[in-house]
């Protein structure tokens, strides 16, 4: 029985990892605390639903449209809000407050268009297979495979492509990277695009299983941030590790007590890490404080 919970936890954790990786792409490099990411995450399944149910397009075309639409919104947030602030060297708190503003606007626009209530993308119960004593639904298999595929693709690119090398250089030292002729604004835009794409995929994977409402973004963002911090800010493997850890931990909390205490345990873990090991498990020296 406990293995069933661990497997569920790992699969949920993988999706946390996908979302956290998207957040880390922006945070590790630009140091923007991208709270609007919560709203960007939430938009994707609405686009998916709109495309499937109102336009009547097939699932895979709809996913593509949802990801593209989400990218567009993430891009807009960067162009309209972060870039002008970055130009005048605004502090991290100013950027964070603007980001909160952007999040509030996006959430409420979606709430006005689609309503405040929970929507279901995929009605019906997913079929399942049993491996040994463990029951896995097809949706879970799909979630697991997609997440794994994304991680492999991303880390191969990060390691070997020119984009990956520049991204790591940007993370290590923005000034030095730009002195050496990197087009920082261009790479930044690319990172925002990629980040929104990760949010969209993670979000659609979850919403396909359990549906969504305009307020699902914040809890997920918080999970992603905790995953990033306990994994270790600065490394791109960290959010994946942190995500899986949190997924398993939350699942075990459900097993041993009840789902009510999931959040409390997660944030207790965050505070413990902030206190005792702020650099996270994979602990790399941080660029600033």
């Amino acid at each position, binding site marked *: 029985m406990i293995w069933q919970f661990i497997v569920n936890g790992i699969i949920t954790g993988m999706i946390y990892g996908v979302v956290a990786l998207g957040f880390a792409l922006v945070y590790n490099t630009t*140091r923007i*605390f991208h709270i609007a990411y919560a709203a960007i995450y939430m938009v994707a399944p609405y686009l998916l639903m709109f495309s499937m149910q109102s336009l009547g397009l097939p699932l895979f075309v709809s996913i593509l449209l949802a990801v593209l639409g989400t990218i567009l919104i993430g891009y807009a947030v960067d162009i309209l*809000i972060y870039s*002008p*602030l970055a130009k005048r060297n*605004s*502090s*991290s*708190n*100013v*950027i*964070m*407050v*603007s980001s*909160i*503003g*952007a*999040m*509030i*606007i996006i*959430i*409420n*626009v979606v*709430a*006005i268009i689609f309503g*405040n209530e929970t929507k279901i993308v995929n009605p019906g119960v997913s079929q399942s297979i049993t491996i040994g004593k463990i029951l896995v639904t097809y949706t879970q298999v799909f979630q697991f495979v997609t997440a794994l595929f994304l991680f492999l693709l991303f880390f191969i690119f990060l390691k070997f492509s020119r984009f990956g090398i520049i991204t790591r250089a940007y993370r290590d030292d923005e000034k030095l990277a730009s002195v050496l002729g990197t087009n920082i604004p261009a790479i930044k835009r690319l990172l925002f695009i990629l980040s929104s794409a990760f949010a969209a995929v993670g979000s659609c994977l979850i919403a396909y299983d359990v549906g969504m409402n305009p307020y699902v973004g*914040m809890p997920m963002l*918080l999970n992603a*941030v905790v995953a990033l*911090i306990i994994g270790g800010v600065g490394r791109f493997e960290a959010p994946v590790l942190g995500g899986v850890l949190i997924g398993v931990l939350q699942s075990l909390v459900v097993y041993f007590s009840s789902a*009510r*205490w999931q*959040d*409390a345990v997660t*944030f*207790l873990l*965050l*505070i413990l890490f*902030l*206190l005792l090991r*702020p650099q996270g498990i994979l602990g790399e020296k941080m660029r*600033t*404080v």
Partner: protein
Amino acid sequence: MDYVIHLFILINIYIILTTSTNLLVGTVNMLSLGQAAFYGIGAYLSVLALLSFNWPLFPSLLFAMVGTGLISFLISYPSIRLKGDYFVLATLGFQLIVYTILYNWVSVTRGPYGITGIPSPKLFGSIEIAGLWPFLILSTVLTIMVVVIFYNLIHSPFGRALRGVRDDELSMKALGKNVNRLKIYTFAISSAFIAVSGFLYATYVSYIDPTSFNLDESIFILSALIVGGLGNIRGPVIGALFVIILPEALRFMGLPDNVAANLRQIIYGLALILLMRYRPQGIAGTYAIK
């Protein structure tokens, strides 16, 4: 007329919230997303004193303030050494933990069912403060007291030391000030006074449940403060007026209720973005957050 009095009571509650938060955010530059947690702790402690101990007004109020101030050490002591985003995250974590406890510890807080039948506070054990007018007077008196206290605090040597920490922490250390202790005190003072609005809210509405003290409320308090302005007394007061009166102004536009609520939020969001871009010190503040 009753409705106008109701609005004034709400404005008073929010003035206390924003003014206390201003000490933290505007004078020391500690951006906190955990203010609603202290608001909630203050409210629940007040209820504990009024309902379970059956205490009169001032002992209950004092109990809530001291209790909340002491609880603030739990979060301030570990988190003050964190900087920037990490500090905000620690307060955010605290906010969510407090909310989860209030929501799930059903045997003590009655969780999502909330606590009903909170008695009206009794002045000197006999004069009961119930109804709109007495409450307006009580809340106004308390608000004026809080504002005067904070005005004096900001202009005292203590306030100057806090501004010193905000503007140049290293120099303050070099001058021999114990920066961490100053920050912990600020946290305690700010949360103790937030407990006053918790007390007012709990006794005025006579019903509390955890959803009034969630992360959205924290963001709302912070937005109200930032819109109004940081660093002085005018700013927070204007912020509280803005967030309470704006929805009333929108009411006259004749929008359907559900759209009006979302539209109001959109206006707050837009205000935050525009202010951060063009006027980071807020409408009437003296200090631009950094």
